[in-house]
């Protein structure tokens, strides 16, 4: 019953935010061109790396394209959901409108994470899927049930980790008020997800898997696509994703305890 209520609320969210975003039609067109150009740009950069080398960190060009595809999908998801919603937390806290959110008779984390939607991110998701499809043809990947399951699981885990990272950074606003630049730092680190983890030096590899698990987000799903995955890595990713999701909840409740409304 509760679930049904949330589903109903969510369809309302979708409806209102789509309606308000479609007010800016040219904007969506420009975002569309931006998404295409940025994909072309990153493939161009990749081709520079590969112009005289056959493989980088054990990844060939065709295989590295899979990472690009997955990155594009995840970036699309970030632009559709995480970016418009979670940056709003910063605004809520600065302008004191978080009070209104907290007073609503639904879960505040649900409200704050899913209220808005940015339709121009869909295009990136579609672009990413197209690229993945092309990659699957180039790399002659056979689709079977276990492959589908594993890729779905790893992708979902990546989304959760990504959500957790964004959520942590944005929630710290409750203490620091201005976190725009922390978001920029996260964004620039996420950029690393475009490249295979093995192409970095050992220290950076450790950094990107232990401190900021960006490496998990794109590399492990790509390995599943190529069929070179190791089971323990997938299990580790599932564990990391669960931890991120649970701590995001705990962290939110903890942060709310320290929250005091604007003039108090």
């Amino acid at each position, binding site marked *: 019953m509760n679930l049904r209520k949330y589903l109903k609320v969510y369809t309302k969210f979708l409806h209102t935010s789509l309606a308000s975003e479609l007010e*800016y039609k*040219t*904007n969506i067109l*420009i*975002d569309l*061109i*931006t998404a295409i*150009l*940025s994909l072309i*740009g*990153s493939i*161009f*950069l990749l*081709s*520079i*790396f590969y*112009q*005289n*080398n056959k493989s*980088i*960190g054990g990844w060939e060009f065709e295989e590295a394209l899979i990472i690009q595809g997955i990155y594009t999908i995840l970036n699309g998801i970030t632009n559709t959901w995480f970016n418009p919603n979670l940056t709003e937390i910063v605004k809520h806290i600065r302008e004191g409108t978080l009070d209104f959110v907290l007073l609503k008779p639904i879960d505040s984390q649900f409200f704050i994470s899913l209220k808005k939607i940015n339709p121009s991110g869909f295009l990136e998701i579609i672009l990413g899927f197209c690229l993945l499809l092309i990659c699957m043809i180039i790399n002659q990947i056979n689709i079977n049930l276990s492959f589908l399951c594993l890729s779905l699981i790893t992708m979902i885990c990546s989304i959760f980790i990504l959500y957790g990272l964004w959520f942590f950074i944005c929630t710290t606003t409750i203490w*620091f008020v*201005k976190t*725009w*630049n*922390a978001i*920029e*730092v996260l*964004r*620039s680190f996420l*950029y*690393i997800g475009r*490249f295979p983890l093995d*192409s*970095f*030096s050992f220290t*950076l590899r450790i950094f990107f898997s232990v401190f900021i698990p960006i490496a998990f987000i794109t590399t492990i799903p790509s390995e599943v696509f190529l069929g070179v995955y190791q089971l323990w890595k997938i299990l580790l990713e599932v564990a990391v994703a669960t931890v991120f999701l649970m701590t995001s909840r705990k962290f939110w409740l903890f942060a709310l305890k320290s929250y005091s409304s604007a003039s108090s």
Partner: protein
Amino acid sequence: MLEYRVEIALWAISGIIPFFMLNIWTNNSLNESINISNIMLSRYFLCAFFVRQFSVVWVVFSFEEDSLLGKVSPYLIQPLNPFFRYFTQHIAEQITRFPFALIIAFFFFIFNPESIWIPNLGVLFLSIISTFLSFLIQFLIQSIVACLCFWTEKASSIERLLFIPTLFLSGLLAPVASFPEYVKSWIYLTPFPYLIDFPANLLSGNKTNVFVGISMQILWILLFFQVFRKIWSEGTKKYTAMGS
């Protein structure tokens, strides 16, 4: 500006992408094929980081916010072009960013002690000038985009579109020297390589043509300045304050 020290430090950290790129280049010895030694390449990327730190521009976002909130109207009455206000803001922030950039450079040299070098005074002087010119080019481009706020409310999406070629073609992620021939043949006619690649090459002591570079920068500045003046006068004619 000094009130927001953490913010500026974080902003400086967010610019370290060139170092990650450097890591990919040297870790896979990709630079052998383009005839740039490890040391030269690491200097290049360090300089690219510096040039980026001191030429980054965000006037579109400030102007968009101000025009949406209706703050532009009082600015327009003042006898000074409002963009001058943003210009000085940028300069002030660059000065505050300088120590943070130095700290990052210090850490860079700890990890890469072999790439320490001291550019001679003439080169330093020229590269400061060319970095400033690069900043001017980007400032003018963004001001032109910002003026589009007079016609459309959200000019920042156009800026995001323009940022993509800037990111990939300016040399921030890979030196222009490494680009394939079919790109190199036309790229030097566009403003992009003069934004980061040219000043970074100059400062790091890589091969570059100083005279051609600086004159191309000045050429683009003059061109964009004319466009800006035109679009500004058209825009202010078009402008009506909120609620009128």
